């Protein structure tokens, strides 16, 4: 399917959704649910509220579907709506359980000792711990910085796109990403598991030096 064809199909799908056709609602959800879920997951980490968040994101999408003027592709527009849902969730998280507490506790100290061991099982455990430590640090960031960092560094979106999604300037977005990165690097300096996860080469070099 060419970009133009996809674009036309999006326009017509939205048109059908606006006439209240349930099949169109389902089709739109099925087309975009994977991408929206992945973005929410990368921003928020594993989360028991994920079902509700995904549903909320799409309810927001359908509520404001009339406002889509096709100045952006439907995917980008839906991403923008999803980012707003994530932002609201992060803003309210003071009243919620921190994301990292929702993660399964694999036993951090055991993982620390296991990280030097060889074998795929140990590496997987190390990766899981690294993710957990990373999101612990991300929990300390403000919503805007977290969104900017995760969308750019984890979700792999260009800075300009991130700025567009969060409704900010590229410069401000760049600054937020830089600050978040510094914060994570500082945490990694004191946490070998996190350091191993975010920069295995540097971690290996540090290990060699200490040896």
């Amino acid at each position, binding site marked *: 399917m060419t970009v133009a064809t996809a674009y*036309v199909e999006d326009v*017509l799908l939205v048109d*059908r959704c606006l006439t209240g056709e349930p099949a169109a609602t389902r089709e739109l*959800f099925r087309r975009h649910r994977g991408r929206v879920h992945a973005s929410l997951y*990368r921003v928020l980490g594993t989360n028991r509220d994920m079902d509700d968040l995904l549903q909320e994101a799409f309810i927001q999408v359908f509520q404001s579907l009339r406002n889509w003027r096709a100045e952006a592709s439907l995917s980008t527009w839906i991403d923008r709506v999803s980012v707003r849902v994530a932002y609201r969730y992060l803003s309210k998280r003071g009243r919620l359980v921190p994301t990292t507490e929702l993660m399964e506790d694999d036993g951090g100290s055991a993982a620390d000792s296991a990280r030097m061991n060889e074998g795929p099982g140990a590496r997987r455990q190390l990766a899981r711990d690294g993710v957990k430590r990373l999101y612990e640090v991300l929990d300390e960031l403000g919503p805007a910085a977290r969104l900017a960092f995760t969308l750019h560094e984890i979700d792999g979106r260009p800075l300009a796109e991130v700025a567009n999604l969060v409704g900010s300037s590229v410069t401000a977005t760049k600054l937020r990403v830089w600050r978040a990165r510094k914060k994570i*690097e500082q945490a990694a300096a004191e946490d070998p598991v996190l350091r191993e996860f975010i920069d295995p080469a540097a971690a290996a070099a540090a290990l060699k030096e200490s040896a």
Partner: protein
Amino acid sequence: MKLQGKIPVEQLEEERLTNIERKLVVAVSDMQAPPERASRRMLAFAGMTMAVAVAGFVGYKLRPDAPGPGNQPTVEQPQRFAIHTSADTKSQTLDLGDAQLVSGLGTDVVVERTRDRVVVQMQRGSLDLTVKHDPSRMLVVRAGDTEILDIGTHFVVDYDGKDDVAVRVTEGEVEVKRAGKRENIAAGFGWTTDTGKLALAQLDAAAATAVAVAPTPDPTLGSHVPQVPTVQTPVVAPNAGSATPQQDDAAGSGSGAGSGSVVVRKGFGKSNARVALEKLAIEEPLDVGTKELSTAIAKYLEMTLSMKEGEDKTQVLYSMAVMQHRARQDNAALYTLSAVIKRQGGKAYKSALWLNVRIECMQKFDDECRQAADLYLRKVPDGVAAGVAQTILTEIARQ
């Protein structure tokens, strides 16, 4: 710091996704709840009205002086039979003993029979009649303001439900009465509202020409040309037994039943149906100042997006579908048309339905084609295009 791709996303289970989807559909339908509630109120009102009407009818039937087995009226009550065939059902046969009626597709007829008279009141459609001559009983077919009196014959009447009637006599003779004029039509001749009496070959040619030159499927055209019902072909032979629910009620032993011969009327046939399909022009798209297909499609798209909700987008979407069809993007065109058809209204609704038939049936007369033609006939039962759609359905039924 390279984190992209290092955090695997845990996939949601299908059951959870289905659950979300279900909730979402409910939530979205709730967003449009007011009109739905209004229609429910209307349904409730209609239901109550029906209940009152049924109660009244039952009460009337149960009244003490109601006619029963012991108190038959002295005046002869006519027997009534109804024939109804939709666009996708088989034709029905009504055997009255000395007259046999076979309906075409999309036909509505009420037959009233007394001792000396059979009156066939056509609402629309096509009827093939085989009648044994009986001087003591007259058979009259009424189609709009036209009356066809049987004089012992085999003939076919097509009626568009509005103005146009076409009669084709294959055996014997009939008398056609209209506007105070009478014409006897013998075997080998036909009669139409527009032309009056003419030879059957001319009638066939006129019908074919009408289809070939029709510029648009607009149903209003149907009143200017001999109706395309002349292209109809019975799906089943008389006495095929598909539907004779009134047969048991019919008087007569059946010994005087019509010839029972299978009559295959002249029609376009499969290849001619295809020719008609190709030649029947489609409604032209809106002029956007360019004939270049991709540019025009882009312009229509832009127009669609700039239109406010509530404005009739059907013409723009239809125009886009025409251009997509011309650009050989039939899948895209069908998708666009679905957006028009789902609206069930709008200026270009009928044109979109016809373009849908054209695209679906151009390659072959398959199930998609059948659905498209059937949809067209249900929504636009009259006119030239409806006749072509009916012919297509008949051809598919014969395959």
